[in-house]
């Protein structure tokens, strides 16, 4: 039943957000700390329990899969309700921040790929 998947997803999200609130309170921040991340790990753990197949093709999985597919539209709705008019004055900052993050990432790909394919092949490095 898809509703089982939706209920599982909602339950994980609620537990994650609640724990995030508790962690935030414990750290003295009036903020939710990592609630979404905790909920994601919880959902991963529960849908990958040994002997239980809660894959995207299963009826329960379809309930989770639907909301996974809805995330881009929801992000579009979120974008459409943001206070962009006030942010436009800082446009250069957004462009610089985004570009710098991409360049830094590209620069590190060859280095970490080398590590991924085994440090033993160190002598294979070429200058090209």
């Amino acid at each position: 039943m898809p509703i089982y998947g939706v209920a599982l997803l909602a339950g994980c999200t609620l537990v994650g957000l609640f724990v995030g609130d508790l962690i935030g309170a414990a750290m003295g921040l009036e903020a939710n700390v990592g609630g979404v991340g905790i909920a994601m790990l919880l959902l991963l753990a529960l849908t990958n329990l040994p002997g239980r197949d809660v894959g995207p093709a299963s009826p329960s999985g379809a309930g989770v899969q639907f909301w996974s597919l809805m995330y881009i539209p929801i992000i579009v709705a979120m974008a459409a309700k943001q206070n962009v008019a006030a942010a436009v004055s800082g446009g250069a900052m957004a462009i610089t921040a985004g570009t710098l993050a991409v360049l830094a990432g590209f620069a590190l790909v060859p280095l970490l790929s080398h590590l991924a394919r085994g440090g033993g092949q160190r002598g294979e490095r070429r200058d090209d």
Partner: protein
Amino acid sequence: MIDVARFADANGLLVAFVFVGLVMLVSAVLARQVGRGRVHASAIAIALGLVLAWAAGVDTGGKNGVADYPLLAGVGVLGGAMFRDFAIVATAFGARVTDLRAAGLAGALSILIGVVLSFAAGAAVAIGFGVTDPAEIATIGAGAATYIVGPVTGASLGVSSSIISLSIAAGLVKAVLVMVATPLIARRIGLDNPASAMVYGGLMGTTSGVTGGLAATDPKLVPYGAMTSTFYTGLGCLMAPSVLYLVVKALV
């Protein structure tokens, strides 16, 4: 005459589904016709959403983009915190624990390095542009990670909507740039095998950027990059409002 605004308000969420569906439809057409498949339709849709929010903000003088029009108030519900968190958690469903193990240490390491690296780049730029509030610096840094980590961090730290918009804009710049630049730079950074695709997905993080960029480079590499990038947002949402924010707070 029927009061259209009241009718739309009573059926707000349904109006929002139609609104977002139309925005995505227009974006898909733009991606095919104008962008010739170069830029992912979802990136165009988000950009279009931001443009509409900007136009609405100028028009109404409000803070909630198109949701300030009574007719489109439902967009504020669909784009609000509850649905946002719900859908983001659902995206974790695409990843498998066994695949995560297969990604190995380098894959996991690249996610951690990618989050910290992007956050540091974004935070440094924010400081360079004269932002002094630690919560705002952390939100911009989180936005440079992805356009999801930015608003999650911003909402968690309670910054203003304009800073959240900035962080989304930074994440959007990143996503679009990754999509466009990846096929051009793939050979130079050795992006031609599953291992480097996993590292690349972990370093870049932005799932739409990574999957769009890899699809334009070599469709066979998409699942490897998507796998690590799926965990990036989770780790970013976990680290940015907590550890990384505290580091910024201690340094500023």
